[in-house]
């Protein structure tokens, strides 16, 4: 009941928002934010609820509309609700009603993705979550190319996923397997490689991992700040989540075989993202490329086969969700005030806007991995896990981008907040209370997670027997 509501309520309410008057967007925004807060409460108190399952197909393979919480999805659903709530508070402009509606639809679709216990249902929500983002990009007007790139890249991945799901179903006889302790582990040598390839293409494009990333910087740059906060914080984790709940338990041998390739891709993404972030002038693109870099590190963890690194991956997935959402929301606030996000045209805002500067500083510090904040907790767990699993050199190479992260994050802060004030920039006021209310829970969450990540780690370790099949 509760799991079904978590999926359907946001989608239905989101669609219903279109019935509200366009001239008075405050109602739509308020209703949407209330619903997001409600889903957070539901998810927080409802993790012990039973699954909901209805039979969908019985031939040629069994499939169900099976929704339920798992140890990982619990945290991702919470993260999604929190980020959606924050994002909804900072929606503004003439398209407020539409964006609020699409954010809710997106939340519902992604809740479905994370709660799906059936691979076919997972594939359904995988494709479904493309549509709201595409429609937001399209309605944005001038960005036709970006919308196409986003849709076609991700749909190509979605179709590979669909084909792999069909083959998975035919081989295993059922797709109702996610999180099921009794499900067969291993698909068999003859099909496994192909099925894994299909899943991997979808997951790598979505994450994205270099060299499948070319849709990402443009999409992040063109999406309105609230939407990009959700996409970067949560949608980009869908692929990594897929590797953890489908790849690790069912395609373990193939994951191990693919490890060298994935390590190369992950390290490549780590380094490439970090160096491009150092050179970018567009503040949003810096954060976009920093995401590429950070998610490369999580990819290493996911393919390490070490349960310590898995725990680190989950902590870092949540941490990255929190601080990247905060970064995009704060940068959106800056762009909304100064009508530019060019780092060379911005400057000196810190003196008159102390709260804005403080929020950006906290988010940047979390992103660069300051001990005591969530980013550090994730990184140290992943690196330790990698090292203990015998991947010393990858761990050492992965250290370098972490140092670079300090450089590009502080550069963003300096260029916007420090230095002489630019007289040609419009003078606006400091963080509004609504923006503060949006950022505050994110900051609180990544401070708490940085100090005490044990709850999240325990979730992975407890479910670890199944999640962490290898070691």
């Amino acid at each position, binding site marked *: 009941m509760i799991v079904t509501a978590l999926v359907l309520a946001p989608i239905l309410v989101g669609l219903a928002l279109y019935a509200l008057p366009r001239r008075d967007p405050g109602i739509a925004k308020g209703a949407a934010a209330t619903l997001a807060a409600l889903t957070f409460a539901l998810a927080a108190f409802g993790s012990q609820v039973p699954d909901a399952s209805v039979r969908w197909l019985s031939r040629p393979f069994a499939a169900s509309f099976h929704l339920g919480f798992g140890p990982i999805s619990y945290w991702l659903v919470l993260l999604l609700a929190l980020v959606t709530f924050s994002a909804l508070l900072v929606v503004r402009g003439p398209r407020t009603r539409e964006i609020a509606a699409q954010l809710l639809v997106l939340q519902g679709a992604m809740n479905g993705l994370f709660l799906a216990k059936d691979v076919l249902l997972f594939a359904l929500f995988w*494709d479904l979550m493309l549509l709201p983002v595409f429609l937001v990009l399209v309605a944005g007007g001038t960005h036709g190319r970006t919308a196409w790139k986003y849709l076609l890249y991700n749909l190509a991945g979605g*179709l590979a996923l669909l084909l792999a799901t069909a083959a998975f179903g035919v081989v295993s006889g059922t797709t109702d397997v996610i999180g099921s302790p009794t499900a067969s582990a291993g698909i068999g040598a003859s099909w496994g490689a192909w099925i894994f390839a299909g899943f991997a293409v979808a997951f790598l494009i979505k994450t994205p991992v270099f060299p499948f990333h070319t849709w990402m910087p443009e999409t992040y740059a063109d999406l309105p700040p609230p939407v990009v906060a959700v996409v970067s914080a949560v949608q980009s984790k869908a692929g990594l989540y897929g590797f953890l709940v489908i790849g690790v338990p069912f395609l373990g041998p193939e994951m191990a075989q693919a490890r060298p390739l994935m390590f190369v891709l992950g390290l490549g993404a780590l380094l490439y993202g970090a160096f491009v972030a150092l050179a970018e002038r567009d503040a949003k693109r810096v954060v976009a490329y920093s995401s590429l870099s950070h998610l490369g590190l999580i990819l290493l963890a996911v393919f390490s086969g070490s349960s310590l690194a898995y725990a680190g991956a989950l902590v870092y997935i949540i941490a990255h969700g929190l601080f990247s959402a905060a970064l995009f929301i704060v940068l959106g606030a800056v762009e909304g005030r100064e009508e530019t996000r060019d780092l060379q045209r911005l400057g000196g805002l810190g003196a008159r806007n102390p709260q804005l500067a403080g929020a950006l500083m906290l988010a940047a510090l979390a992103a660069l991995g300051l001990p005591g904040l969530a980013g550090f907790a994730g990184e140290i767990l992943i690196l330790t896990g990698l090292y203990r699993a015998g991947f010393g050199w990858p761990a050492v190479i992965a250290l370098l981008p972490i140092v670079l992260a300090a450089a590009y994050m502080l550069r963003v802060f300096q260029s916007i907040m420090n230095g002489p004030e630019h007289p040609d920039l419009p003078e606006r006021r400091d963080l509004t209370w609504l923006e503060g209310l949006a950022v505050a829970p994110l900051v609180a969450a990544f401070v708490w997670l940085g100090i005490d990540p044990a709850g999240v780690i325990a979730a992975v370790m407890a479910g670890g027997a199944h999640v962490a099949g290898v070691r």
Partner: protein
Amino acid sequence: MSPAFGSFPVGADYLALQPMAVVACTPLAILFVDLFLTGSGNLRRGVAVGIAIVGLVFAGLIEAGQYPHDYAAFGGAFIQGGFSIVFSEIVIVATVATLLLSAGVGRTDQVAGTTALLLWSASGAMLMSGAASLMTVFLGLELLSLGLYCLCAISARSTAREAALKYLILSSMASGFLLYGSALLFGATGSVTFAALAAAPMTPLFALGAGLFLVGIAFKLSLVPFHAWTPDVYEGAPLPVTAFMSVVTKAGTLAVFARFAYAALPAGHAGAILIPIWVAAALSMLIGNLAALAQTDMKRLLAYSGIAQVGYIVAAFAGQTALGLRYALLYLAGYMFMNLGAFAVVELMSRDGDAVVGLPRFAGLAYRRPWLAAAMTLFLIGLAGLPPTIGFTGKILILAVTTSAGYAWLAGVLIAGTAISAYVYFKIVRAMFVHADPAHVRDERSRSSLPWLAVGVCAVLTFALGLFPLTPSNVLPLVK
């Protein structure tokens, strides 16, 4: 059939033809009643369409009542059973939807005639769905086509006459192939019933005959490389007729193809004979979608999209599995709702159902007519194979069944074709959601609001079939 009567037809034989006879006789009532309605008002249109729908619904109910029983009538020339009934019901539903679209189109004094022709064509398709002999196949095909030649030409536009002539010539050529193939098959086996074909020994003559027969079928299904006539004919014909052709012709021909492929080919040789058809299906998925990329006229776009969609359906037959047949029928039903829904939306956007509706007309539709845009979006994402529609569920079922039948390459081509098609359908979605200056967009509305009914029903079923993919179980095509 009692032996005392030999092969003379008995009462039950005529009973098997009853639904078709109802559809074929309803036009007589329409034409007769129309004689007394000389006005030009909506009454005349309403009466013609109303009688036709009553007749079709009645025929549909009779079909449903006959569902549990398989019966070979007329010495095995026409077999009424689960298979033919499901196809006939699809034809009936599609015809009813077409009538809803056609209610406001064309001159009032022509409505009775066009309605009658539509029903006669539909009865031809119903005959094809039960046909189990080369003679009945040809009879049904010609009955279907004759009405359509006239319907294509009914509009006053010159492109309509061009389309009709093109259709007449190319369709006759296809019939020629089919007939020549039939003659060779008869020469090889000495019989025209499918039952005899299945039992015949394999000879070169038989293979040649079967090959020519399948070429004729491929023409009618507009599989690549026999597809070139389709976009021109679709573009020229009035919109409801195009909608009708895109579903009913394909359903009737698919029924013939399925019965031929499943039951009329000698065991052990069917696989080899049918390989060219699977290749043609693969080419249709790719080339149909590639050609659709460049189209801006909605009818041409939907014509190419239909070529690709039929490729998906034919792919489900690969390996001639029972499950494949069920999912082909499911996807055919889904395609019918998505496609007719899209046509109904286009109809609602044009004043007389005859004008060219191009892509620019969709600009900003989501802000001018949100419900229409929402429905169109659902149909288009369904045609593109995205959830939450029958397009998604149907496609995954076809993928699974072709993969498990050993035709993984067809599944791969299906995915590639679908990837290409995303651009085709989302081009329209994008146009609808782009903010456009209303002053630059022609905003026409249909005279009749009946197409709304078609849009609503199609939208609900496109969604619901995706969640509850019901497939009839008793559908194996029989030959005796």
